[in-house]
Structures are given as C-alpha cells and as structure tokens.
C-alpha cells in the first residue's frame, strides 16, 4: 500500500496526539512508528528527510515536524492542529505529575530517588553526545570544536549567546574548507 497523507484534520490531530501521549523515553521512535508503520502517512525515506530538516532547525525536533508536515498537508491550519495534538496531552500530564510531586517532595527518601533519575538523565545526554560524535570523531577539527564548546559552555559557564555565534562562524569556516 502506498503511503498517503491523513485524509482529514481530525485524523492529523489524532495521529500527533498518539505520538505525544505514548512517547515514553524519546519521541522520535514513536513518531516513526505512528507515521510510517501504523498510519502510513509517509514512506521511510520521506520520514528521514523530514527528520533531517527538523534536526537542522532549532527547537523541538518532532514539534517542528508537526509544523512542517501540517503545513505540507493542510497549510497553516494543519500546522496548528498537528502542533496542538502533539503537545496537548503531554503538557497536561507533566503539570499534573509535577503538582502531585510537590506533595511528596518533602517526604524522606524522595529526593535521593529523583536526584538519581536526574543523574541517569544526564547520562542519557552524555550517551547521545557519544553516539552523535562517532561518525565525526576521526576529524581533528571536529574534536577541537566539541572540546571548545564543552569548555566554554559546560565548564566555563559562558553564555550561549556568545558561544553559539562564535562557534557557528568557526565551524562554518572549517566545514567550508572540508575539515569537518
């Protein structure tokens, strides 16, 4: 069966709702499952193309995908509907969870557990960075940029308002010379 776009705004809304609501432990795999496997809105190659664009753009990746795909299929209306479908439930849940947590936060034994989860979450960031670094780790210039950004932002705590423009300019020049 050929992939086909959602037939109505309602189906678009429900599709993105089911991505947001089920996305435990990372959104991208669920976006793939819903749009490519379950609802067959997109062929795998089209999905990969949208993801590349949305990772390139600033902002939440799948949030951007809701805007881009909504526009492609239904124009501005589609973007708004897909965006609301995607964020609606997770936003309510996370606030409900946080309010619930406030009541428990002062109980003994809660803080160590939450701190442990945060440390593991920090580890997931580090793991993600390692995975992303693998394909570029053989290029000395890439390692210099990584080390530079880490020393400035992570250790030196310099504002990203300064670091991003400087690093972007340097990276761009390096990439243009074929060093990245």
């Amino acid at each position: 069966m050929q992939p086909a776009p959602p037939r109505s705004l309602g189906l678009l809304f429900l599709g993105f709702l089911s991505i947001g609501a089920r996305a435990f432990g990372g959104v991208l795999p669920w976006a793939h499952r819903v749009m490519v496997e379950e609802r067959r809105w997109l062929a795998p190659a089209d999905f990969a193309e949208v993801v590349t664009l949305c990772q390139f753009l600033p902002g939440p990746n799948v949030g951007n995908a809701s805007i881009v795909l909504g526009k492609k299929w239904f124009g501005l209306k589609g973007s708004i509907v897909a965006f609301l479908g995607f964020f609606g439930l997770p936003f309510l849940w996370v606030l409900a969870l946080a309010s619930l947590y406030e009541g428990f936060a002062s109980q003994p034994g809660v803080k160590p557990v939450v701190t442990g989860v945060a440390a593991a979450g920090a580890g997931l960031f580090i793991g993600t960075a390692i995975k992303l670094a693998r394909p570029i780790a053989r290029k000395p210039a890439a390692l210099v940029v990584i080390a530079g950004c880490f020393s400035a932002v992570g250790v030196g705590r310099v504002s990203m308002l300064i670091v991003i423009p400087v690093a972007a300019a340097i990276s761009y020049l390096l990439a243009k010379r074929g060093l990245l």
Partner: protein
Amino acid sequence: MSLLLELGLYFSLLSLLSVGGMPSVIPEMHRYVVESRGWISHNDFIEMFALGQAAPGPNVLIASLIGWKIAGVPGALVTLAAMCGPAAVLSFWVAGIWDRLQGTPWRAVAQRAMAPMVVGLILSGGFVLATPGSTPDWRMWLIAAASAWAMVATKLNPLWMLAGGAVAGAILL
C-alpha cells in the same frame, strides 16, 4: 507580569539557539535561571529535569516545568509557547525553502558545521546536570556514566536507565 515577560523573551531567545533540539540549551537555561537570576535552586532544576525526562512526551516540556516552578501555570504556558514559537515560525517558513536547497553545497556545509557544536553542547548539558553547584559528586557521576554506557552499548528503552537511576539514587545518595 514583568517576570512572565522576561521568561517569555528569554525562552524565545533559547528557542532560536536550540540547535539540535532542546538538550543543547539545558546548560544555558541552567546558567540563567539558577546561577544568574537565582529564580530556582539547582535542586529544583534537576527535580524538574527528572520529572520531564520520566514523563511521556517531548523533552521540551522540561522548559515548561521550569517555567511552572518559577511562575506557576502561567509560567508553564509562557515558557512552552516561547520555547516552541520562534522555532515553529522558522520551521513553517523554511519548510518550502529546504527542499529547494537539496543537493546545494551550502546545505551540506551547514549540516556538517552544526554536528560538532551540537555534540559539545549536549555534553555540556550532561555535565552541568550531573555536577550540582559545580562540586563533583562521584556518586552522581557514577550513575551518569552507567546510564551513558547503557545508552551507547545497548538498545534498551531509555526509561530503563531512568529506573536504574532511581534505584541507584535510593541506595547511594
């Protein structure tokens, strides 16, 4: 009102700086709301981070939890809208242009230039979150290292690493 306005403006700026997604701006968010402004403590910050990671949904909701901690439900709405808005407008606008840039050298160069920056920024996020008040705590680093290893070496759903972190936290911390 001025607090909400400042939150809105600041998170809009973060939205445009979030190359590679939300994790890239975690260190900057921490620098501003904890270190520079003192709106919340480091502990509040990592609590909201942990809740946002454990709940289903996009990780940009960590921003709205931090907004909630600072200014209640209005704060949560303002930070989410600000964190997504500018990036969403940009996506809407770029969506058509991107296809036309396919195969052009500029697009390939820009993508290659971005990759190492994103790695450095996400690494910074992990480091800042695991290092409370800039004082190293080997127990937190141990948990972070184990979870990073599991992510790189296995195909487990990340929720297992968070659950492992909860158990390790209860024992070690």
